[in-house]
């Protein structure tokens, strides 16, 4: 809970408008900054001190409006109303002013002090629009700060303002809510009266809303927060019947005698009327403060955008970008593997020398021989793969190329029942499943999102797994083409089957395509750092521990009881019982599967089959936890069942088909 000296500031704005950049500049903390809609899916918080006052800044998810249609909207609405926010910084996109102002008008209804950060004024200027910040401030009644956040322009002014306001809270300014047409205002007024009698007030707020905002919110048929109303079932019923009266036209306001559904404002639903009037108000407001110059010239950026947005040459160009990105990743991995192995060779030799001197103690010798292996594979293969893939992803996100890939991929992905946005999680999955499952939120439909998450967790090898599989091929001569080929086949078949369960409306894409921009080095570096720092603290210890642990178990003969399964597993799957342990252990961390295999004496054929089985087996533990959290337990159970079945099938078929080599 907040203390008396603390000021709570909420950053609110559309996706991709620069909220996170503003946050980073104010607090110096590393919130991830991205260029595709839906990145800030979780709230990011940071604190900073100004003149002895602690300021807590909350970065809310990007939203286009405050209606409660999406999870992000509901989260933002809750934060604003229940977290006792002292100040809203509404980040507005100057180059899309008209659309940004819809949300601004809704925020003004909440009667919370607010300032507008008018971002991307350079982009607006480039397309021939000069926006009067003074005019905008006069019309909304709140201060306006023009800025170019990515370049750091205008942020100092904002910071100075916030510091001033830490010492004089009198700065706090509630803006001017918009006024609807007389007919709509009459309905709102009457609704307010009824609500005032119904809803108990808490100071001057009702259910944390100003009365007027609550009336408008309910008029627009928004579901109120269920948790808020659950405590008062009678109130819930009363409000619902009032909403019903209005939508059916039995609710009569003073302006007319026919009821709202027949309001002369139009045959539309009353909810639509307020939305339409707000849209019109936003349009008028934007027009009043925008001066259009004819100086807009087709910039280089606009030219490239128009080329990329057309199917030709857009699609081939984007495929080329994807191809070269992954070629770059492979090149980097090959290069770094040799370099790291060479660099680590003195240590490897040292351990080798040690192992002969402790040969008398089985546990010690197992430890000594397992440690270099445990470090070598993660450092020479897994780590470089993660660096390379995360760098490519960070650059693609930052430039705005990813959403364009989504558009280009839409038709291609439609047989699998998912819209084009799915390409983003699918590509991310080649890096790590955890961010991939999180970014699946970019797909709005619930079923489509579940199908996508199951598909990618089972069939796509993450960077660490690819690295470990490459190690398998190096050590035993396992065939990488067979392993990846079987994953691709499973992707196609499983995708086509699962896609049948997605309803038609969830397959449709509706996506904003942000402008292209040059990648910002600091954005890319911050993102890279945030994603890599987990490697040393979490991934490396697990890799080393498993490698050492399995070695010891093997040397002590603990796993030899599995030889009892050899008959069955060799007959049906072509691998020995011990390799099945590797397949099963991938449920903890998939890349540990190949690591376990590397400690076993295997033929190339066995390694290939076991590797292929691993690359389509159970999702790893962190992914499973997220899968259940994001999509529910049902999805996790389906994923486990599908993965077990698919993995065994692949083993069976490969054993039947592969020649002995």
């Amino acid at each position, binding site marked *: 809970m907040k203390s008396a000296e603390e000021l709570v500031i909420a950053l609110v704005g559309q996706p991709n408008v620069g909220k996170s950049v503003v946050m980073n500049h104010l607090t110096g903390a590393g919130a991830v900054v991205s260029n595709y809609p839906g990145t800030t899916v979780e709230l990011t918080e940071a604190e900073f001190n100004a003149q002895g006052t602690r300021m807590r800044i909350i970065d809310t998810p990007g*939203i*286009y*409006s405050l*209606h409660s*249609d999406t999870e992000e909207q509901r989260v933002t609405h809750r934060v604003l109303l229940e977290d006792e926010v002292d100040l809203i910084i509404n980040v507005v996109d100057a*180059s*899309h*002013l*008209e*659309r940004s102002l819809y949300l601004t008008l809704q925020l003004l209804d909440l009667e919370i002090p607010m300032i507008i950060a008018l971002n991307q004024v350079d982009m607006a200027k480039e*397309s021939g629009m000069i926006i009067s910040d003074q005019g905008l401030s006069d019309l909304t009644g709140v201060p306006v700060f023009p800025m170019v956040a990515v370049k750091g322009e205008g942020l100092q002014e904002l910071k100075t303002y916030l510091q001033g306001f830490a010492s004089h809270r009198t700065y706090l300014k509630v803006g001017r809510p918009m006024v609807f047409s007389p007919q709509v205002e009459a309905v709102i007024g009457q609704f307010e009266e009824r609500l005032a009698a119904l809803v108990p007030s808490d100071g001057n707020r009702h259910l944390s809303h100003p009365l007027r905002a609550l009336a408008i919110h309910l008029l627009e*048929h928004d579901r109120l927060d269920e948790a808020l109303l659950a405590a008062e079932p009678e109130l819930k019923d009363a409000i619902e019947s009032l909403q019903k009266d209005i939508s059916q036209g039995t609710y009569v306001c003073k302006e007319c005698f026919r009821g709202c559904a027949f309001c002369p404002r139009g045959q*539309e*639903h009353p*909810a*639509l009327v307020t*939305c*339409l009037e707000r*849209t*019109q108000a936003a349009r008028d407001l934007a027009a009043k403060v925008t001066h259009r110059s004819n100086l807009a010239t087709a910039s280089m950026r606009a030219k490239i*955008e*128009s080329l990329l*947005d*057309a*199917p030709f040459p*857009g699609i081939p160009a984007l495929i080329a970008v994807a191809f070269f990105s992954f070629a770059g990743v492979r090149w980097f991995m090959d290069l770094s593997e040799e370099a790291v192995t060479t660099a680590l060779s003195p240590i490897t030799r040292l351990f080798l020398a040690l192992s002969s001197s402790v040969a008398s103690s089985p546990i010690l010798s197992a430890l000594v021989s397992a440690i270099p292996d445990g470090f070598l594979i993660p450092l020479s293969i897994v780590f470089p793969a993660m660096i390379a893939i995360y760098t490519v992803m960070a650059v693609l996100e930052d430039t705005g190329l990813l*959403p364009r890939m*989504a*558009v*280009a991929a*839409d*038709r291609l992905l439609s047989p699998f029942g998912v*819209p*084009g946005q799915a390409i983003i999680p699918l590509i991310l999955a080649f890096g790590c499943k955890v961010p991939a499952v999180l970014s699946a939120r970019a797909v*709005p439909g619930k079923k489509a999102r579940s199908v996508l998450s199951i598909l990618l967790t089972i069939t796509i090898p993450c960077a660490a797994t690819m690295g470990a599989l490459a190690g398998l091929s190096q050590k035993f001569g396992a065939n990488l083409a067979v392993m990846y080929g079987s994953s691709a086949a499973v992707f196609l078949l499983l995708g086509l089957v699962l896609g049948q369960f997605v309803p*038609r*409306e969830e*397959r*449709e*894409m*509706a*996506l*904003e*395509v*942000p*402008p292209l921009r040059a990648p910002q080095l600091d954005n890319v570096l911050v993102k890279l750092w945030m994603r890599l720092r987990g490697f040393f603290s979490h991934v490396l210890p697990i890799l080393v521990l498993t490698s050492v642990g399995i070695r010891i178990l093997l040397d002590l003969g603990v796993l030899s009881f599995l030889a009892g399964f050899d008959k069955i597993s060799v007959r049906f799957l072509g691998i020995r019982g011990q390799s099945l342990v590797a397949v099963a252990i991938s449920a903890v961390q998939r890349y540990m599967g190949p690591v376990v295999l590397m400690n076993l004496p295997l033929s190339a054929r066995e390694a290939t089959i076991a590797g292929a089985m691993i690359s389509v087996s159970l999702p790893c533990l962190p992914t499973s936890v997220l899968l259940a959290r994001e999509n529910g337990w049902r999805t996790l159970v389906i994923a486990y069942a599908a993965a077990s079945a698919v993995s065994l099938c692949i083993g069976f078929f490969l054993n039947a088909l592969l020649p002995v080599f």
Partner: protein
Amino acid sequence: MTLDQLRPGERAVVQTMAGQGANRRLYDLGLLPGTEIQVIASHPFRGPLVLKAQDAVIAVGRGLARKIPVTRLDMKSGDTK
């Protein structure tokens, strides 16, 4: 006519849509009744349409586009605007 029938380069105005709620996703992207749009690209094999609306670039799946009623602006009135 509906949005999916437009060809690249053509301009149109979005008409009132039937139903409610489901369309908010489109509203959020700026595809409101009365909005003037221009089709930038139409992807082959019934792929998505890319349009410009309110200075933003938006991609809409073909099936969704089929549900959005529009009035085409002929080139002359489009140009005078």
